[in-house]
């Protein structure tokens, strides 16, 4: 009997997600905010609290985080990460500092413990690479000369997650300084090992893992990621980092094929994860957080646009391109929720962190794409304004011929 109820609940919620996804696609929105809202509605204190299927959703959410990070790692090769780190490190650092600062400020104002402050810093810092990549394609900007700069910044944000997540996990676990340093040390060694494997041993590893049969490939890569994620959690360095490192270590043909077979699985479990995060938020907690979230939205929009524009300017992109680069990466999404999920799932007391993060991401995931669309006319307007003022605006850079990361072929 309870099995039937579980199935009906699960079917109902997944069907609802599908309909919401279709609606989001029709109006050109990211589905993430709608999934979160659906979670809030079916969660505790919502209009239609779920009962029986919560256990499945909770496990599914954990798998969702692992798959999100695994596919993030699969997307990039170690060589790309290393080159980007070399070329764009200053711009990447500016981006991270500028966008973590508002989160730190909010955490301090709210009087949260250090772990809560660090979590909030991550939530405001990291752009949604999913939303941004989709926007670049939808707006026809994949070929644009500022796009490599945007992608580099995203890569560096994601790479910094490999260091940030173990630190956060250690702090959230409330371990002592020594144990914390130890687990962070383990994480750094693991990151270095994964990069080394990807750079030196990608062929033998690829042969070991690869299969022409997509079913076999799916099971091997998924199983490997779950296993390593579990080991990472056991070693106190966050299951997400483990999955991310598996993704980085795999490259070439294996990575491309695995990405294809795992994407539908990721889409499903990531949706479950967003619902699960929403479920743990009391709807009544959201209204008081609207104003702080709105302030945070304004500040972090400015900091993100500034970071993107500065990086583009450094690469010799003209003013309109600088504005496009800044506005396209404003959206925060899946990874902010991953971080918030880690924080709210832990023992630390940071009242309001969950609802604030959810409200913030709701606003950012809806507003970000709108702002990205506005980036094009805004760029033209800025040029016209600069021309009318008769001098170059503060953000108009020198028109250097070649952007960073471009190399002439012989």
């Amino acid at each position, binding site marked *: 009997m309870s099995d039937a109820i579980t199935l009906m609940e699960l079917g109902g919620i997944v069907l609802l997600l599908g309909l919401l996804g279709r609606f989001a696609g029709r109006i050109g929105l990211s589905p993430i905010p709608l999934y979160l809202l659906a979670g809030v509605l079916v969660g505790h204190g919502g209009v239609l609290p779920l009962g029986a299927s919560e256990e499945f959703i909770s496990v599914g959410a954990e798998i969702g985080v692992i798959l999100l990070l695994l596919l993030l790692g699969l*997307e*990039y090769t170690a060589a*790309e990460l290393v*080159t*980007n780190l070399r070329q764009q490190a200053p711009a990447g650092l500016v981006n991270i500092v500028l966008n973590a600062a508002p989160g730190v400020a909010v955490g301090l104002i709210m009087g949260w413990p250090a772990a809560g402050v660090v979590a909030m810093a991550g939530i405001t810092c990291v752009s949604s*690479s999913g939303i941004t*990549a989709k926007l*670049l394609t939808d707006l*026809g*900007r*994949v*070929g*644009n*000369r*500022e*796009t*490599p700069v945007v*992608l*580099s910044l*995203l*890569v560096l944000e994601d790479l910094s997650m490999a260091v940030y997540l173990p630190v956060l996990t250690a702090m959230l676990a409330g371990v002592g300084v020594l144990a914390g340093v130890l687990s962070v040390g383990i994480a750094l060694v693991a990151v270095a090992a994964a990069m080394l494997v990807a750079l030196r041993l990608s062929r033998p590893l690829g042969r070991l893992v690869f299969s022409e049969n997509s079913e076999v490939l799916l099971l091997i890569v998924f199983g490997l990621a779950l296993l390593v994620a579990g080991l990472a959690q056991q070693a106190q360095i966050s299951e997400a980092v483990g999955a991310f490192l598996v993704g980085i270590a795999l490259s070439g043909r294996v990575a*491309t094929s695995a*990405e294809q077979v795992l994407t539908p699985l990721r889409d499903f479990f990531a949706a479950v994860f967003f619902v699960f995060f929403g479920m743990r938020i009391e709807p009544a907690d959201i209204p008081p957080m609207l104003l702080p979230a709105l302030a945070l939205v304004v500040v972090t929009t400015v900091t993100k646009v500034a970071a993107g524009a500065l990086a583009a300017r450094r690469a010799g*992109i*003209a003013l*309109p*391109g600088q504005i*496009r680069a800044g506005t396209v990466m404003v959206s925060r999404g899946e990874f902010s929720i991953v971080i918030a999920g880690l924080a709210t799932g832990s023992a630390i007391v940071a009242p309001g962190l969950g609802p604030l993060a959810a409200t913030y991401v709701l606003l950012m995931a809806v507003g970000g794409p709108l702002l990205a669309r506005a980036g094009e006319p805004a*760029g033209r307007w800025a040029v016209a304004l600069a021309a009318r003022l008769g001098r170059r605006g503060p953000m108009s850079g020198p028109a250097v011929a*070649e*952007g960073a*990361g*471009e*190399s*002439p*072929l012989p």
Partner: protein
Amino acid sequence: MFDGDSEVEVTETKLPGIGLRHDFVTEDGRRVGVVSRKSGRRDLVVFGKDDPDACSLVVGLNGSEADALAEFLGSRRIVERLASLSEQVANLVTGKVRIAHGSRYDGLTLGATRARTRTGASVVAVIHAGQAIASPGPEAALQGGDVLVVVGTAEAIEALRDIVAE
């Protein structure tokens, strides 16, 4: 090159997570390029005139569409090249040169005629007793009544005819 093309300077840019972009600036100052996605799709991109950083035209192509476009662009060029090649070929003719019985070369080898050195014409076959020996080497024996199949300019063939008639 036949039509005075200069080498095109192609710029390769990595797009982490997406793929690669190749682009170059045409003689007329337009930047065109192709984004090769990891999925195999291609985007043909043309950059704007007023904003050189932005693409004013993006055409997404699947694998076979990209192949079709490449073939069209490529084979047009090949046809042009073949046309100019056949113009050069137009000056070449093939001819037959008969070795008379009692000729100086009756019983000698093809090498002894030193045909290519002296005339520039190439002997591509020897017809001996109704049978063609293709691509004969210098050691090929010649006998009266054999016919040489020759490729070269008309003058060169005429010169060879004079030589074997000695």
